[in-house]
């Protein structure tokens, strides 16, 4: 790292920019979400009955949690492509654990998964920072490793199934009406919101905005990024608990979730490359994506054309967001596709 930083960017206070960015880049997603929710109401008048709506939130919960985790990584200027593999691995490992220890308490298994997610995130973070491997490659490699290792270990498919106790978090309800998954989603969302308002959040955004400036200002950028990866890993493990609980053992529980999570975050106006966007908007992006899936399903779009419609809407939504606020982003220098160094 050499020091050719220009003085102008170093002088700008980070919080200012953060607020401007949050307002500027987040707005379109709320519009999109409102439009989709209205469309859902028109398509299906019963959609807003409390239990139906709660069921929708419950279904969206894993993606929202993944998006929150992914946001932390993306806003710090990195990628996490391993989250889908963590979800698959989490579900399979849980089933395998129950195969060996059928009496295990759900809390123990859940905590073991969260710990496992944290470890994977830690490894991702260490390799991406200390070894300077671009996170796109680190997490792509991690995805291959996790998928391979977990099925190598289990000989192709898990040996046990998930008992009701473990599945309650993803499937059951508190007080007979409030799905636990909704509570988990609220808790994770609240935590992410609080985190982003804390000092850590500011340093995270500063790191993503300009690593060099942040480092000069005394931020320990490596540590900040490693923490972001760890949190993303934990979020993915929590999503695994919810997905496994919602739908049971599956050898492909997390397939494609990494792309869905990144799409959700970008829909929320968060800029790939780091430094811009709010976590609430990212989670709104996840809700929008889930609303879109539900709408396509209810509309009865020909099953085969669903992905085409989805592709168009995602491009259009992101394009719209970019077009409206392109002026605000002039200062951005980093390249569109990659991670800065």
């Amino acid at each position, binding site marked *: 790292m050499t020091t050719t930083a220009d003085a102008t960017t170093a002088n700008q206070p980070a919080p200012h920019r953060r607020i401007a960015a949050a307002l500027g880049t987040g707005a379109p997603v709320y519009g999109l979400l409102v439009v989709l929710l209205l469309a859902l109401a028109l398509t299906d008048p019963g959609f807003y009955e409390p239990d139906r709506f709660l069921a929708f939130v419950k*279904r969206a919960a894993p993606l929202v949690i993944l998006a929150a985790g992914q946001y932390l990584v993306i806003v710090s200027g990195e990628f996490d492509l391993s989250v889908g593999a963590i979800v698959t691995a989490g579900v399979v490992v849980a089933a395998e654990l129950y195969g060996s220890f059928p009496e295990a308490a759900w809390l123990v298994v859940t905590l073991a998964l969260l710990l496992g997610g944290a470890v994977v995130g830690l490894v991702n973070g260490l390799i991406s920072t200390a070894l300077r491997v671009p996170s796109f490659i680190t997490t792509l490699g991690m995805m291959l490793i996790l998928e391979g290792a977990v099925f190598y270990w289990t000989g*192709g498919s898990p*040996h046990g199934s998930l008992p009701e106790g473990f599945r309650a978090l993803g*499937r059951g309800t508190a007080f007979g009406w409030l799905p636990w998954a909704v509570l988990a989603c609220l808790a994770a969302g609240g935590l992410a919101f609080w985190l982003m308002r804390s000092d850590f959040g500011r340093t995270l955004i500063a790191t993503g905005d300009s690593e060099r400036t942040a480092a000069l200002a005394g931020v320990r950028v490596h540590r900040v990024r490693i923490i972001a990866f760890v949190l993303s890993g934990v979020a993915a493990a929590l999503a695994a608990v919810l997905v496994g609980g919602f*739908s049971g*053992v599956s*050898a492909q529980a997390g397939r494609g979730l990494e792309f869905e999570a990144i799409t959700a975050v970008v829909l929320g106006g968060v800029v790939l490359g780091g430094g811009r966007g709010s976590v609430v908007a990212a989670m709104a992006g996840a809700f929008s994506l889930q609303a879109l899936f539900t709408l396509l399903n209810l509309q009865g779009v020909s099953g085969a054309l669903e992905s085409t419609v989805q592709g168009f809407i995602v491009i259009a939504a992101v394009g719209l967001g970019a077009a409206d606020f392109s002026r605000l982003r002039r200062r951005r220098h980093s390249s569109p596709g990659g991670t800065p160094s």
Partner: protein
Amino acid sequence: MNRRRLLVPAAALCAGALLASCSSDAPPDSPAGASKSADTSDGKDSKFFEQAEYDRQMKLMDTEPEGPDAKPWEQMLEPEMTDTAEYKKKGSGGTHLCFSNAGVFNPWRQVGLKTMKAEVKQHKEITKFTELDAQGKDDKQISDIQELTGKGCDALIVSPNTTATLTPAVKEACGKVPVIVFDRGVETDCAVTFVNPIGGYAYGAVAADFLVDKVKPKGKILALRISPGVDVLENRWSAAKVAFDKSELDVVDVKFTDGDTSKAKSIVADAISRHGQIDGVWMDSGATAVAAVEAFEDAGVDVPPITGEDQQDFLEAWKDKKLTAIAPAYPTFQWRTPVIAALRILDGKQVPKEWKLPQPTVTQDTLDTYLEDGMPPLHYAMCGCDKMPGFPEAWGGKK
């Protein structure tokens, strides 16, 4: 510096030129000659429903198979035997069996491969078994087949990844070694035998007929499919559609689940609320059947008649929850047959040109015979492996 960069491609070019000058003729093993006979294959387009094949499968479902009752993997339907004296293995010494596998990308194939390996172990004359895994890549499987033909295999078993695309490679291999194709076919009849169960039309029709029988007229049917563009699955659906079109049932939705249990559960939940009720669920495969059952439970309604597959978790749910269900199977015991066929061929014994295996269905009456306790949730009951050494541990089960 720039010159050094030039070196690499330049060297490659020079090497290429050198090689070109030393042997420019097409190698004798190129398929150019073989593919002249390409017009013998029917070049069929799976896009359209084939009446003749449909009729044949329907007829086979009612045909009594030849062979031992207790060993369906050795049974055959309407066999037309072919002579294999030309492939009889000369001299003594062990047999080297080779297998080009499309991949192990789903539990069905994993159970199948375990069963095949167990079958190989049962035959002491097989001294070497080489398996190459194409990981779902057509291109790699073509190379794998080419590689195996150069390895001194006595016989080659192929489980093609895609029907049409492996035809050239299999044709090429046929000239060198006896080939046994199973599961999906290829568009050439050069293989000594093609082992497969009755087929996708019969699968789809059995499930659809069950619903036609169990669901009252005008009942609302939800059809769940894995994904479009997969020929075996398209066959299952097209046969079901024939049955539904003839009936008075109303197919309200046809949805793709991608084999994703969460997605399947969401789709069923949405369908229940959108249509008020669902009176029957048709599935083209069993991977997501339990998720569908749970969606009805979570919505607080009775589970309607539902079709699945012989996957363990579905059979368990069926028994525990007393479902009205049926499970047609694409039996995994077909993974045993190619090994048996290969040994027969190398022995010079006759085998059927197309080895049609029976395709049993799990019904209420046979549920208890197929459901084995202690097996893992993604096990397939129709593996024909319950008497094999190492069962159930090798398949992940507990005694």
